[in-house]
């Protein structure tokens, strides 16, 4: 009792500069916020968004066909060029590929994410994270070249199909128009397989995070009220996982829209948006058209998010 009474109730200031800084920041919390947020906001606002804006501005300029110099006057001529048949084909091809990749990634990712969120415990959860993340630790280029070998005519996939007496199936698939080709490694099917493989972690992890937040008793409640597993999936699990699926699809969709390496190494020689941007800003030196091509994914993603919001994808957030 007496020991307590002799001690001061209010402690003196901590000595030194750190003590004074602590007291100052405690009294002025907004200063702390400004100090913490200043650098990232400047980075995002000026360097990141600023340069993106400058890039987009370029798309409203045009190129002089004779001199190859940029004409700094506002014009929609570049957009007219973007919508010409050849360029429009590139856009349609890329968007279709991105949509298919996204759809199949979601179909494959959902059961994996569901298992990880609902059933995996302790050691198996660690195995799951390792399994999903491990491919991200190795070089992107190495993985794509590995896939080129796997998918090649002399590759392990053809060998496996031959051994299983299923070569007719593979040949039949490759004989199909558009998605087929001489071998998987030079077909759209090959490009598709590599895209799905490379972006898979970006689909699994957001879905897993969303499913983890769904309380188990909601599934039980649905079942208790007479919902079959199929109805429970449709009316409870899927709507609650939708924000995660949309988040994952933003990754797979936009990454596919912008990628220029995968279609260059695995696939037919027909261009995707990323390759078009690469070609226009490099060899062709047509910066305005390259900029106009980069506007396409931004507009598409904007439309996609707007539609997702209208359809209630974020209601469960």
């Amino acid at each position, binding site marked *: 009792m007496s020991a307590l009474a002799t001690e001061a109730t209010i402690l003196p200031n901590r000595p030194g500069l750190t003590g004074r800084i602590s007291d100052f920041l405690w009294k002025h919390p907004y200063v702390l916020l400004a100090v913490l947020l200043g650098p990232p906001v400047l980075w995002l606002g000026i360097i990141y968004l600023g340069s993106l804006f400058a890039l987009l501005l370029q798309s409203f300029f045009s190129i002089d066909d004779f001199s190859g110099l940029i004409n700094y006057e506002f014009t929609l001529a570049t957009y007219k060029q973007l919508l010409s048949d050849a360029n429009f084909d590139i856009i349609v091809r890329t968007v279709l590929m991105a949509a298919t990749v996204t759809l199949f990634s979601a179909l494959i990712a959902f059961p994996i994410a569901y298992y990880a969120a609902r059933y995996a415990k302790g050691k198996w959860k660690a195995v799951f994270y390792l399994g999903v993340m491990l491919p991200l630790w190795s070089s992107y280029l190495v993985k794509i070249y590995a896939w080129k070998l796997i998918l090649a005519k002399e590759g392990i996939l053809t060998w496996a199909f031959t051994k299983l007496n299923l070569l007719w199936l593979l040949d039949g698939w490759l004989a199909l128009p558009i998605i087929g080709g001489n071998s998987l490694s030079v077909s759209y099917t090959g490009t598709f397989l590599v895209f799905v493989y490379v972006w898979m972690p970006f689909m699994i992890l957001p879905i897993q995070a969303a499913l983890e937040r769904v309380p188990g*008793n909601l599934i039980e*409640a*649905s079942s*208790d*009220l007479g*919902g079959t597993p199929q109805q429970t999936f449709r*009316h409870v699990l899927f709507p609650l996982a939708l924000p995660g699926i949309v988040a994952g699809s933003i990754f797979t969709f936009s990454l596919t829209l912008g990628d220029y390496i995968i279609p260059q190494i695995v696939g037919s020689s027909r261009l995707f948006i990323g390759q078009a941007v690469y070609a226009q800003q490099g060899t062709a030196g047509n910066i305005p058209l390259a900029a106009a091509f980069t506007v396409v994914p931004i507009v598409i993603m904007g439309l996609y998010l707007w539609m997702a919001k209208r359809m209630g994808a974020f209601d*469960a957030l």
Partner: protein
Amino acid sequence: MTAAVLFENVSRHFGPVKAVDAVDLEVAAGEFFAMLGPSGSGKTTCLRLMAGFEQPTHGHIEIFGETAEGVPPYRRSVNTVFQDYALFPHLSILDNVAYGLMVKGVGKEERRKAAEDALAMVKLPGYGTRKPGQLSGGQRQRVALARALVNKPKVLLLDEPLGALDLKLREQMQEELKSLQKSLGITFVFVTHDQGEALSMADRIAVFNDGRIQQLGTPEDIYKRPQTRFVADFVGSSNVLSSATCAKLGIPSAAASLRPEAITIGTSWAEQLSLPGKVTARSFLGAVNRVSVDCNGEKIIVTSPAAMPVPDIGADVQLAFSRNDLHLMEEA
């Protein structure tokens, strides 16, 4: 008459843990049945066995005469009010309540009407357009009740439904649940760890401990005539007198229970029993004073009405009680 729920030698083991161990019980149709016990006693697992979320490791379960083991929850005419309500956060209150009818294929207009009636029954008319996140705990509890009752279940299971409510609301809901059960005539099976709740609401109570039923009977039975030390202690904290104390009173018994409110402090009448002791602690609880008395090394709790004078700590007192209030137990 067929039992609403019948357990025959039912066990549910999780690895080495015997959550429910060889339980026999019979819930009569139209009864308000409480399962009372501390956490981990197996009462909630029993409820989940009735709902179909768990399947028995051994034994046989019947619901209204039909075999229930191996039947999934969605094929049982049994509905549950969950402890934390488990309302669907993405659906409106009306869609939550109508969910059971929706999955059974009832038409839109019909289920909307039924859901509104159910909301009116739990005194939440006009709340249909809100989302669960916009309601208070008590309101959510009522929605969960409406969502279960709209399906007209044969048996309604309630898993500590009042646990998260404050005292005033809890008392009000206890009365409402009781009268709702009487008017609907549905069998209620209610899980709680609150003995007061079980005593005040249930027609019969099963007291659980370590996966087994310790005692099954009417509230009065359980309260006045506990069969084991656990029941005596858990249901209203009875005093349990040792065999030595019993012998001193001239009663040969392994143990005996004595309710704190059956004891008076002061001189005994001729026909009463009495024990000398020393007051060790006292506390004022509003309506009563609780006095701890040390009787030859045995601690005995007495609750005496607040109007009565309370002896000081350290005072020597005489405890008086009637022989009829002393309930003998076979087990120490």
